[in-house]
């Protein structure tokens, strides 16, 4: 059991309308030196968020108190680059439970689901609507329902459904992880591995 269950989430959102947000931006390599997974939220988007002298950059969204919430909305191709799960840890540790984008890099998507963050992939048009809604009102709320696989902009009632495979959905809803599943099929794996070439 690795994380909290995820069913529905209603929250304001933090907009980051930048394409190709790579994991080196989410958490720069020099902060990967920890041997536990806590505390990465402090360095989330470190170089976009702070100047060289550690003073906050006023124009970065995480430093703007009118935006807050448990949902991060990013531009297309979110999470590309390095496989570092630390990127997902940093997002989780900061307090986000859901990331919305019109496209996710594969490894980031896997990593997120493995620690209980829900990646919600929407169409470009819907992503646009979300950004517009937040721009119009920073307190605009989004509602994400995992059982129904829908995301709704509450102010306008507009909604879109998203994909997730049945297995991962089951895991997230119940707070199970893959290792629980694999432990349960240990004998089957052992038998298979004995016959394998390498």
């Amino acid at each position, binding site marked *: 059991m690795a994380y909290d269950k995820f069913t529905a989430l209603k929250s304001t959102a933090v907009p980051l309308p930048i394409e*190709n947000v790579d994991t*080196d931006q989410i958490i720069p390599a020099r902060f990967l*030196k920890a041997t536990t997974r806590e505390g990465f939220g402090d360095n989330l988007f470190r170089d976009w968020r702070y100047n060289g002298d550690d003073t906050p950059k006023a124009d970065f969204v995480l430093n703007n108190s009118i935006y807050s919430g448990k949902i991060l909305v990013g531009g297309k191709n979110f999470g590309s680059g390095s496989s570092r799960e630390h990127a997902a840890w940093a997002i989780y540790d900061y307090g986000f439970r859901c990331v919305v984008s019109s496209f996710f890099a594969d490894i980031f998507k896997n990593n997120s689901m493995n*620690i209980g963050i829900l990646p919600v992939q929407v169409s470009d048009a819907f992503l646009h609507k979300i950004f517009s809604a937040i721009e119009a009102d920073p307190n605009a709320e989004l509602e994400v329902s995992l059982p129904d696989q829908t995301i709704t902009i509450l102010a306008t009632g507009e909604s879109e459904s998203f994909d997730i495979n049945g297995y991962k959905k089951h895991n997230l809803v119940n707070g199970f992880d893959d290792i629980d599943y694999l432990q349960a099929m240990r004998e089957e794996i052992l038998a298979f591995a004995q016959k394998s*070439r390498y």
Partner: protein
Amino acid sequence: MSSKPTTLFDKVWDAHVVRDIQDGPDVFLIDRHFIHEVTSPVAFLGLKNRNVSVMFPERTFATADHNTPTINQHLPVQDPLSAKQLKALEENTFKHGISHWGLGNPKNGIVHVVGPENGITLPGMTIVCGDSHTSTHGAFGCIAFGIGTSEVEMVLASQCIMQPKPKKMRINVNGEMHKGVTAKDVVLYIISKLTAAGATGYFVEYAGSVFESMSMEGRMTVCNMSIEMGARGGMIAPDETTFSYIKGREKAPTGEAWDDALAYWKTLKTDEDASFDIEYNYDGVEIEPMITYGTNPGMGMGITELIPSAEDIDAGKASFAKSLQYMGFHEKEPMLGKKIDYVFIGSCTNGRIEDFRAFASIVKGRKKADNVTAWVVPGSHVVEAQIREEGIYDILIEAGFELRQPGCSACLAMNDDKIPAEKYAVSTSNRNFEGRQGPGARTLLASPLVAAAAAVTGQVTDPRTLIA
């Protein structure tokens, strides 16, 4: 059952599926698992918390590379956090009976360099590591890809991971290549065409005469960068070049086992009529030495071209201006002649012996430019020894370079090898993201030849003008 034509990818994948979960991923057996000091400590912590042991310690190999210094490796590591990660790796591998090539071990080096070098990587294997450039091993006809720390824990605990089967892409490059054009240029060219996200969701097979005539080093460079266009990984069918590379390496099979393995390896290719979800064809003649001008590896161009304008590009328009601003470049200007400050040759992309041979071929008889700081970092101790044996070391020293000790170094700049803010670095590594090589650093990705030309002229130079 009539045998349907299948791809190389299908053959390897299907042979490893332990269980196919309905409406879910496949449970997939991993043959070799590489670990290093940065992405493994939390995985071992997870095992401890679950009270689970490592299922097959003999299928996992550990090396220290990401965080290690490239000078004075015989001294205690200065950075206390790095030292702690290295110690954790040592203790965890000792406790679980995993072989560990730590700092100072003659086999130590970058994980994707030492695996193939020691014959651990063999055709048809499934290989994972908590590093996205694990795709390197695809050069041997392996399904190899990077994983996150939860998955590292998963593989330690169960020797399996859970993956939906990706879609299949084939990239064919045929035709003659010009002199001065290397494997790195081929892959930078492909990424510039497909964009940094163009292969997301796919596993790539590279085929065609250009790859067939490439050395294993070159093939590793190509497969290494598959991830930079978003692909899960890339692979090349094994052939005689592959087999002769493997033969005689420490962990390679011998005697009867070799014959048996060879017979199997020869079956590892895509059947003639097998189909892919998507295919691309390129002509090797079109490719010139490449260089990147922006902040993702898809932002590459032929070295004699002009930087495109936002109108010319399809993907990433929104970030284009931001990217050029970060780099301090403008639309429609040439890259040739731009002054540079640093040169880094190394990494798992271009840190093998062939890369240093190429570098030396241009450096020989010339001098390092005064305005350039150069970091020459071999991918492993074995490569380092070869550099000395082949006389490359003398050429480097003569030209005013120094040779560092192996490690990831400025590829990700976790150790002290950081490019200062706003400085330009021509780098043979794989990523030019903002701050990848140090906060504010500006990276130009290129081949070892282009790096050498920059190192001796102090500016971006077409290496073809320096080749005899």
